[in-house]
C-alpha cells in the first residue's frame, strides 16, 4: 500500500526532472515540456494531499482537487500562448536553440 511519502517522492522526482530539463536542455520546446512536467508534479502532490488528508467526516478535501483543475486549465491556456510564441520566434529567428536567442543582455 503506497503511502503519502511515496506519492510525494514521485512528485518531487517529476519536479526535479522538469527543473533539470528547463535548466539543462537547449531546445526551447524541450524546456517547455520541462515546465509542463513541473506543473504536473505539483498536481500530483496536490491530489496526494487531498487523498491522504481526509476530513473529519471521512471525505477527501476537494479544495486541492479543484485547484488541480484550475492548474490544468491554466496550463492548457499557457501551452496555447507559449507554443504560439515559440512558433513566432522560430519564424523570426529560424531556430529553437536558446543559445542563439541571447540578444537581450548587457
Amino acid at each position, binding site marked *: 500500500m503506497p503511502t503519502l511519502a511515496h506519492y510525494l517522492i514521485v512528485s518531487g522526482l517529476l519536479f526535479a526532472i522538469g*527543473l533539470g530539463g*528547463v*535548466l*539543462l536542455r537547449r531546445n526551447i520546446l524541450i*524546456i517547455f515540456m520541462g515546465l509542463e512536467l513541473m506543473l504536473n508534479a505539483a498536481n500530483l502532490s496536490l491530489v496526494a494531499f487531498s487523498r491522504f488528508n481526509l476530513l473529519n467526516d471521512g471525505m477527501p478535501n476537494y479544495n486541492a482537487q479543484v485547484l488541480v483543475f484550475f492548474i490544468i486549465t491554466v496550463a492548457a491556456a499557457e501551452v496555447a500562448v507559449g507554443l504560439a510564441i515559440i512558433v513566432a520566434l522560430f519564424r523570426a529567428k529560424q531556430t529553437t536553440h*536558446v*543559445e542563439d*536567442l*541571447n*540578444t*537581450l*543582455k*548587457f
Partner: protein
Amino acid sequence: MSTQTAPWIILFAPLVSAALILLLGKFSKTLSASLAILAALTGCVLSWWLFNQSVDAKMLSHTWLSLGPELNLTIGISLDHLSQVMLLVVTSISVLVFIYSLGYMRDEEGYSRFFAGLSLFLFSMLGIVLANNFMMLFIFWELVGVSSYILIGHYYSKDSAADAGKQAFIVNRIGDFGLMLGILLLWFGTGTVIFAELIESIPGLATAPIFLTIACILIFMGTIGKSAQMPLHVWLPNSMEGPTPVSSLLHAATMVAAGVYMLARIFPILHAVPTACEIIAWVGGITCFAAALMATQQSDIKRILAYSTISQLGYMVLGIGVAPTSDVAMFHLFTHACFKCLLFLAAGSVMIAMHHEVDMWQMGGLRKKTPVTMLCFFAGMLALAGCPSTSGYFSKDLIIEWAVVKIPFLGWLVAAAAGLTAFYIFREFLVVFFGKARSEHAEHAKEQPVTMLIPMLVLSVLALLAGFPFIQDHFFKLARPDHELVPHLLHPLLYVMFFGGAGLATMLYFKAQKDPISIPLFANRLYIDNVYFWFVRNIQGGGAAFLSWADRWVVDLLVVQVPSKLTWACGFALRFLQLGNIQAYAFFFGAGVVGILYILIFK
C-alpha cells in the same frame, strides 16, 4: 464731502492715478502727466480744506486682518494736527514737483512710467502720514521703499542707477528690520499697535524702563534707515542717480521726512524714555556735523545737496531728541521741505541746461544764462544757510537753542555745522553761477520753460517767508527754551557762523577755476563707504564664499552626488548578471527560491 471721507480720497487718489497711468499711459504722455497732477492736486486741495476743518478725533477704521483677540490689524486714519500739517507739506510739495516734472522729463524715456512711480510714491507717503497704527505705517513704510527703488532706478539700463536703487532698498531694509522688531516689542508690552492706545498705555510700562528703551531704539532704527542718519546714510547720496524731481520729492516731502514724522507721531512714547531721547539726539547731532563736513568737498551739484539733506535731517532728529514738543522738529521739516525742494529743482534746471552734466567744475558763469534759476537757487541757499529772517534761520536756530540747553556739547557741534552749511552751499552757488564758463555746455546754457520756473518761484517765496511767525503760527505751536538758559553767546555766534561760512566760501571760490583746497578725508565721505565696501567684500563676501563652498561640497556632493553615484554603481555591477541566457536566469531564480526557503525554514 465730510471729514470722514476726505482723507480716504486724499490717500487713494494717487493710487488710482498710478493704476490708470499704467493702463492708459502708453496711449498718451499728456494723459499720464495730467492724471498724476490731477491726483496730487485733489489731495492738495482737500488737505487745505481739511486743515481748516475742526476734525473729529474718532476716525473711521476698518479691520483688515483679525489674528485672534490679541491682534487686529486695522487700516485706519488718524487725523490730528500733526498729520494735517504733514498732509499739507506732502501734497503741496508733490503738486509743485509734479508740475516741474512736466518740463524736466519732457525729453526723457519712460515718461509714463515715471509719473506712475511718482503717484505710487505719493500714495505710500500719504499712507504713512495718515496711518493710525504701527502695522499700517509699516506697510506703507515698505511701500515707500519699493517706490523709491522704482524711481531711483528709473534709468535702469544704467548700471549705477540700478545699483543705487538696490542700495537704497537694501540699506533701508536693515533699518526696517529694527523697526519691525521695535513694533513687535511694543505690541508685546502693551497688546496694541494703535498709536493713541499705545500712548495711553505707556505709563503702565514705566516699570520696565529697559524694555521700553530697547523698543524705542529699535523703532529709531527705522528712522536711521529711512531718514538716512549715520551710519545708514550711504544710500541717500547714491540715490541722486534718479531723475532730479525724484531727488527733490525724496528729500523734501516724501521718504526721508517719513522717519522724522514717525518719531513725531510717537513723540510722547519717546519722551517717556530719557535714554532713548539722548541716543536719538546724539545720532542726529553727529550725523548733522559729519554730513556737513562731507558736503564741503563734493563736486557733484546734486550730491552736495544730498549731504546737506542728511545734515538737515540730523537737525530734525536732534530736535526730536531735545525739544519738549515734536513741533520743533516738524517746523524744521516744514521749512526744509520748502527750501530743499527748491534747491533740487534749481539744480535740476541747471542740469537740464547743462545737458545732464553734474560736475560743478564744468559749469560756471551761469548767472547770465539762467537768471531765474540763479535767483531761485539763491533764495533756497539763504534759507538753507540760515540767513537771518529766512525760514531756515527760524527753524534751525530753535533746534540749536534747545540742543545747547539740553546737551551743550551737541548744541555747539551743530552750531558749527551751521557754519559749514553756509560754507558748502555758498561754495556750490558761486562755482555754478559765478566765475567763467568752464565748458562748452556752460557757454550755451539756456533758461528753462515756464512749467519748471513757476514751481521754483512759488517755493522761493515760501523758502524766504515760511519761517515768519505770521505764517508758521498757523501750523505749529512752538516751545522756546527759557531765555535765561540760552547762553548769550549763541545768537551772535550763529550770525558769525553764517557770515563767516559765506565769507570764507566767497573768498575761496568767487573766481576759482578749480578747487583751491583738497581734503581727501571729506571728499571720500570720511571713508564710511569704503568701510562698508570692505565689510561687504571681505566679511560678508567671506561668509558668502563659505556658504557657496558648503553648497557646492556638502549639499551638491555629499547629499546629492554621492547617493546618485552609489546607486549608479550598484546598477552597473548588477548589469553583468544580464547574461542573455534564459537558463541562467531560471537557475538564479531557482537558487533564489531555494535560498529563501532555506532561510525561512532552517534559520
